[in-house]
C-alpha cells in the first residue's frame, strides 16, 4: 500500500507517455462533452422554463428521467447504435473518442437542462416584469435573465465537466479502454486494478481527486464573488 502510494507520487512527478495519453484523452472527452452539454442544455432549459407550450410538463418529466439514466444503460444504447449491426454503424463511432463524447452528451445534457429549467424559473418572472416595464425587447430580456443566473450556468457547467471526468460505465462500453486511443482515467483505473497494478491506478485516482478539488474550488470562488 505505502509503496504503491510512493510509486504513484513518483509517477505523477515523472509522468510516462501512457499516463499523459490517458490524461489528454480524458480532458479532450470531458471538455468536448461538457461544452456541448452547455450549448445544448442552456437553450433547452431556458425554453422549458420560459416558454409555455403544450407538452412542456411532459418534457420536464422526461428530462428528470434522463437525469437519472444509469450510465451503463446509456452505454448499452450507444453501443447498440454504433456497433456493426446498429443504424449508425457507417459513422464508425464505436471505440472512438467522438463516440464516447456522444454518450457523455446524452448523460450530462439533461443535468444542465434540469439546473437551468429550475433556476431560470425562479428569477424569470421578476426579470421579465421589470424589463417589460422599461420597454426592453425579448432579446435583451433573455440576456438579462441568463445574466441573473450566470452563477448557476457556470456551476452547471463545472458539474457537467466533473461528471464527464468521473463517469466510467458508458465510456468503457463505448470506448473500450483502448490504450493510447480511448483509455480514460476511470477506465484505466479499472483496468490496472484488475491487473494488480495499483501504482498507475492510484496516481490516476489522486489526479481525479485533485481535478475535482479544483472544480469545487472554482465553484466556491464563483459563489463568493457572485452569490
Amino acid at each position: 500500500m505505502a509503496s504503491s502510494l510512493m510509486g504513484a507520487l513518483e509517477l505523477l512527478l515523472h509522468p510516462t507517455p501512457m499516463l499523459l495519453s490517458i490524461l489528454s484523452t480524458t480532458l479532450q472527452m470531458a471538455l468536448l462533452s461538457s461544452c456541448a452539454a452547455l450549448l445544448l442544455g442552456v437553450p433547452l432549459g431556458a425554453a422549458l422554463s420560459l416558454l409555455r407550450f403544450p407538452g412542456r410538463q411532459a418534457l420536464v418529466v422526461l428530462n428528470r428521467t434522463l437525469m437519472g439514466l444509469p450510465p451503463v444503460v446509456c452505454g448499452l444504447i450507444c453501443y447498440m447504435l454504433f456497433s456493426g449491426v446498429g443504424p449508425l454503424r457507417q459513422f464508425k463511432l464505436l471505440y472512438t473518442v467522438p463516440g464516447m463524447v456522444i454518450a457523455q452528451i446524452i448523460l450530462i445534457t439533461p443535468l444542465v437542462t434540469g439546473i437551468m429549467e429550475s433556476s431560470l424559473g425562479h428569477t424569470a418572472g421578476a426579470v421579465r416584469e421589470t424589463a417589460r416595464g422599461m420597454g426592453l425587447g425579448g432579446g435583451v430580456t433573455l440576456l438579462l435573465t441568463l445574466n441573473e443566473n450566470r452563477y448557476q450556468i457556470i456551476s452547471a457547467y463545472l458539474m457537467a465537466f466533473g461528471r464527464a471526468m468521473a463517469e466510467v460505465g458508458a465510456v468503457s462500453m463505448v470506448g473500450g479502454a483502448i490504450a493510447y486511443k480511448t483509455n480514460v482515467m476511470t477506465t484505466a483505473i479499472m483496468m490496472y486494478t484488475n491487473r494488480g497494478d495499483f501504482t498507475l491506478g492510484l496516481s490516476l485516482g489522486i489526479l481525479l481527486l485533485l481535478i475535482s478539488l479544483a472544480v469545487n474550488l472554482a465553484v466556491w470562488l464563483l459563489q463568493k464573488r457572485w452569490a
Partner: protein
Amino acid sequence: MEIRHLSKTYGGKRVLDIPAFAFEPNTRYAVIGANGSGKSTLARLLAGVIPADPGAAISGGGSVGYMPQKSLGFRLSVRRNLRLGVRDAQAGERSARLAAELGLDALAKRDGGSLSGGETAKLALARVLAGRWDVLILDEPTAAMDVPAALRAEECILRCQRETGCTLILVTHAFGQAERIGQQALFLHEGQLWEHGPAEQLLHHPLRPETRQFLRFGAFA
C-alpha cells in the same frame, strides 16, 4: 387609456373586477386600497405584463412605462442598469439628472443585484423615469425609501409627469403622497373600484363608509 370589463381571476377567485374606467391624458392618478385589494394586479394588467380574463379590453394606452412593486436591480453595475433605460441622448441627460437627484451617483459602480430595498427602488425609479411614456405606472415606488429620499423621489415623479404630459398611475400607501401627487384618486376595495374622484375630495371627504374606514387610520405624512 380606457378599460372595459377588466377582470383577473386566480384559481377561481376574482381578485379584480372593474367594469369600465377611463384614464385621461396628462393627469395624475393615485391608487389606494388595503393589502390584497388588487392594486398591483391592476398595475400589472395595465402594464400588459399579465393577461386579463377573456373579454377584457384595454385601449388607447400608447407606450407604457411600469415600475413593478418588486423591481429588480439587475446584476450589472448600477451605471449599466441606468443605461438600460436610455435610448437617446435626451434620455441620457434625464437619466444622469435623476441619478444625481436620487443619490445613485455614489452607487454607480455597485452591483445592481446587491443593493438594499430602498436603493433598488431608487434605481428602478430612475430607470423608468428616464424613458418617455404615454402612460407611466408606478407600484409603490417609495415604500422602501426613507422619508427624505421619498420626498425627493416625489419631486422627480412630478417633474417627469409635467415634462412629458403622460398619464401617471401611482399606487401608494402614503396618503400624503397620494394628495401631493394625485389629481384624481381611486380607492380599490376587494378587487372593485369602490370610489374615485378628485384626490382632495376622496382623501378628505370620502363618500362611502369603507373608504372612510380605510382612511381613518392613515397618517398624512
